[in-house]
């Protein structure tokens, strides 16, 4: 999946990384439309050897209990994944992106980084999918320890609120794939969406907020606003960001 088939001219001559201007994509994609990309039938059908060839040399993954633990939903150009990859080198992580050209870019980017930094970036990968529809096809119950939703599409119109990636009903599915104690990170530069995401998480019985001390102690929290392309853009323009970080808890009986 990550073999480089890219036209050499799309790679930068100085860094060897793919150049973004060859991967222009629309800012939005309709999550409601029927999907035409392949989707694994179940989490057992996800071929780890394609995504993490160094960790899974053969396609027989029965012997290796290692599983993806971080999911960056709507990973965009993959900035967060690249930062997390070196911070947690032994943790498998995956980016999920709906726009095909953006996914292609991230694939090339990871490929180029693996080439120029032997032994590194082997734990990151990307997949083109509609995470709002197919999260349970990729992850087992309680498999994930962290989920990221950074600068999602705000969908301002009320009739499009059901397209938002954080919604009361979708949180049920995120709670299902997160282990007890797993953390969900959200950030946006749109105040209205920030409030929406916070209230969805606050009102959900399976999530509780992290304390200020816990946020302070978590190295990932700092990356939320700095690691991604979208976050850097907001910082350049001096914009404000709104963060909501919640933990998956055992339901009270």
């Amino acid at each position, binding site marked *: 999946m990550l073999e480089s088939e890219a036209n050499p001219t799309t790679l930068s001559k100085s860094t060897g990384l793919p150049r973004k201007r*060859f991967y*222009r*994509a*629309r800012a939005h994609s309709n*999550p*409601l439309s*029927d*999907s*035409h990309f392949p989707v694994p*039938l*179940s*989490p057992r059908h996800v071929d780890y050897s394609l995504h993490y060839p160094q960790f899974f040399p053969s396609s027989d993954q029965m012997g290796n209990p290692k599983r993806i633990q971080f999911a960056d939903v709507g990973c965009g150009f993959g900035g967060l994944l690249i930062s997390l990859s070196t911070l947690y080198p032994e943790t498998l992580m995956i980016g999920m992106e709906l726009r095909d*050209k953006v996914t292609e870019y991230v694939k090339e980017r990871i490929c180029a980084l693996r080439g120029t930094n032997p032994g590194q970036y082997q734990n990151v990968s990307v997949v083109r999918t509609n995470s*709002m*529809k*197919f999260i*349970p*096809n990729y992850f087992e*119950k309680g498999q994930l320890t962290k989920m990221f939703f950074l600068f999602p599409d705000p969908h301002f119109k009320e009739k499009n609120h*059901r397209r938002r990636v954080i919604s*009361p*009903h*979708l*949180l*049920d*599915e995120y*709670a*299902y794939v997160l282990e007890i104690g797993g953390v969900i990170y959200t950030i946006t530069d749109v105040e209205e969406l920030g409030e929406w995401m916070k209230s969805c998480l606050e009102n*959900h*019985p*399976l999530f509780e907020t992290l304390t200020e001390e816990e946020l302070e102690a978590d190295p990932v929290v700092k990356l939320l606003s700095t690691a991604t392309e979208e976050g850097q853009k907001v910082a350049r323009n001096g914009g404000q960001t709104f963060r909501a970080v919640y933990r998956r808890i055992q*339901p009270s009986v």
Partner: protein
Amino acid sequence: MEDALNEGENNKELEVAPALIAVHPTQDSVAVAVGSDLRVFDLREGCGVHLTDDSVEPFHKNSIRAIRYGANGKYFVSAGDDKLVKIWSTNNWRCISSVCSEKRVSTVAISKDGLYVCFADKFGVVWVVDLHGIDGSEAPVNKKAAPLLAHYCSIITSLEFSPDGRFILSADRDFKIRVTVFPENPLDGAHEIQSFCLGHSEFVSCLAFICTVDYPQGFLLSGSGDSTVRLWEIDSGSLLHTCEVGHKAGHLGSNGSKEDCSAVIDLCTIPDHNIVAVATQSLQGIMILSCDLSSQSLNIAKVVSTGAENYIPTSFACSCSGELLWMITGVSKFRGSDYNSLARVRVLSGFNTSNANSAEQKVIVLGDNEVPGAEKLLHKLQGSVSVKEDVFVAAAEAVKTAMCNLLIKKQYSAERREFRKRTRNDKKTKQ
């Protein structure tokens, strides 16, 4: 194939609804829905039932898509394309509540304790209606539905409660079956997902539980557009066995030609027997599967012909005693026929014979005079006693087309997709 699908897209008139059948748990009555018409026959009195509906919008105005009796037989629910969910008391067949849905309703279920009605709409949201405080004696009560759970914008094809009432199961056209804990107070939503049953490679069309004395908690059965019936353990969502029914169906199909589309239409388990009745799109008759719960396997036992040619059931029903299997074939708003709608009821008997080996049981199709209620029942439920058999081929074809249009994802060729993309700005820069 592509042309056919596109045609269906443009021609909304092709949207026909299959005829449905439901039987009271103790076989007090039997109900049939054809189009917007709801017909009920009282089996104890041996006469047709007159329905009373004093609500603001009496009776259904559009195709009924789901009918269901509650497990205790007290209530009956009907719902469909007119976005109304009607709850009837089976005592006096009066509509005790008419609930408005925002979207068209695709399926309904009643909780095991009979206190909640759940229905699913075509946008993937499952709603719950609280029946506390309804006794059915007074005028229709205005009830509002609360959202329970949602599949992300996918048509929910089937809703089912687990035999112990702990879980609510929902199946969708995105190949998924979701098992959700049915909470103490469902009006606050059901947030805890127990498992997903994943493995089907096409839409899931129907769900049913199989329970025996040895396995009271039961196992789940699902039928799908991928021409399989699958056996699941719902606590973990693990697939126990897959039974291919398409091959058999195709083999025995109309003119021996193998059909590429033989989706499972409906399945029905015979209570306390390890038997499952299956209807598929290309099989004329009923396929009987035997289910061995100790070895957790599912096998085709035999195919029962209804005696009549061209009979492809659209819906099954069975009472708790498992004595008789009721089935119906038919469609609403069927064009090219003299009838406004078309329905044919048949009954299978012989599951309760003492022969222990289910596969060797003598299952027979009852003649029209042997059916409980005989001609009177057929007249009430079918609209007429005799139905010309030859229109059934076209009827089955109409049901199949409607089901495919609704549930199978449109396939476009690579060229056509490229053509549609040509106007996209982000693709232009490539040249």
